[in-house]
């Protein structure tokens, strides 16, 4: 496909993983990341639900993008996203009831998560269906990665397990990590860490350029 912006399918798919990570770089859609990352199981369920909604709503919005009048596009996007979230909500109620109970109101709240609406406005309204679908999947993977990172960290330091498998004894338990304040602490420390890594890497690059 001819493309003026130099976007290949692969670059669209991978943009959301690290460079444009919705959680750590764009700082969007934090509510579920903080609220349901108390265990790796919950984080995986929430991440997959969001990934599904993102991919399908991006695809669908891209199909109908040319027939939506510009003035009312936001309400239309929200209605489309709400329809898919309702489906996901009912599916999870039917097939994964325990997970549905422990995620609670955060599943219907995917509707008002900034990421699907943000991607609809920024990407799906301007690109073809296939690219939009890839963008949704890529952003969904970025979100899934971030929420899993938090979920695994918090579960590990709360009870010494990952997905319920025993890793180490309870001697390393930091009990605040699983409480609400712990979510802020863990994500803040990760952000500082990522920024530090980015800084060290850019310094190394600069040094490498000088030595040439």
């Amino acid at each position, binding site marked *: 496909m001819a493309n003026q912006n130099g976007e290949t399918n692969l670059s669209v798919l991978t943009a959301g993983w690290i460079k444009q990570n919705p959680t750590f770089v764009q700082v969007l859609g934090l509510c579920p990341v903080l609220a349901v990352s108390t265990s790796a199981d919950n984080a995986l369920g929430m991440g997959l639900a969001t990934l599904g909604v993102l991919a399908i709503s991006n695809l669908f919005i891209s199909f109908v993008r040319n027939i939506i009048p510009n003035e009312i596009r936001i309400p239309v996007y929200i209605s489309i996203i*709400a329809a898919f*979230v309702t489906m996901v909500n009912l599916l999870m109620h039917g097939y994964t009831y325990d997970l549905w109970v422990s995620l609670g*109101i955060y599943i219907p*709240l995917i509707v*008002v998560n900034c990421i699907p*609406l943000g991607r609809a406005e920024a990407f799906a309204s301007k690109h073809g269906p296939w690219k939009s679908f890839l963008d949704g999947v890529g952003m969904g993977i970025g979100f899934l990665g971030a929420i899993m990172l938090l979920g695994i960290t918090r579960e590990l330091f709360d009870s010494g397990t990952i997905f319920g498998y025993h890793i180490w004894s309870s001697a390393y338990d930091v009990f605040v990590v699983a409480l*609400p304040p712990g979510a802020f602490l863990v994500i803040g*420390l990760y952000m*500082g860490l990522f920024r530090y890594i980015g800084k060290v890497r850019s310094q190394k690059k600069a040094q490498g350029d000088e030595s040439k």
Partner: protein
Amino acid sequence: MNANFGELFALMFSAMLVYNFLLSRFLGMCSFFGVSQKIDTAVGMSIAVIFVMVVSGISAWLLNLLLIAWNVEFLQILVFVLVIAALVQFIEIFVKKTNPVLYNALGIYLPLITTNCAVLGVVLLNLNQSYDLMQTIFNTVGSALGYALAIILFASIRERLSIDELPPVFEGMPAAFITAFVLSMGFMAFNGMIKA
């Protein structure tokens, strides 16, 4: 009426302090970190959120009766989101006309109340707990006041922090998260208040 006033006030204060929307339920995070650099914008945002939350909380409760009467409860999410979107549109027009300075200060975050999970969150929580009308009103008001309290406190701390020297890698967002951690720890102390 089943609940007496003591219970209603307990409900309101627990929604405001113990189950604080921002610090223990993590609803409305975008605005919590987005508009908390200045106290003025935090106050403006809180007023807008309080208004939208209370009005949409009550109208959603009434609409839900209609949905149940027509046996279409599965439309809840869709209907509530559209009601909130319409309300926010109305407030946007109102603020633009009456207070352009505040309108400019709130910027993108005013239309974004539509996607503020705190508003839809309170509506869904009220329904999940199957509150009656009075309980809905008190719970909604308490949640809204809790939102205002937390975001204004947070903005005050961040305003003070912005003139401090921080380790460079923690400047900006990471420092904001650590601040929220400390604030949230403080609010955890209220947990002991409501046990009965």
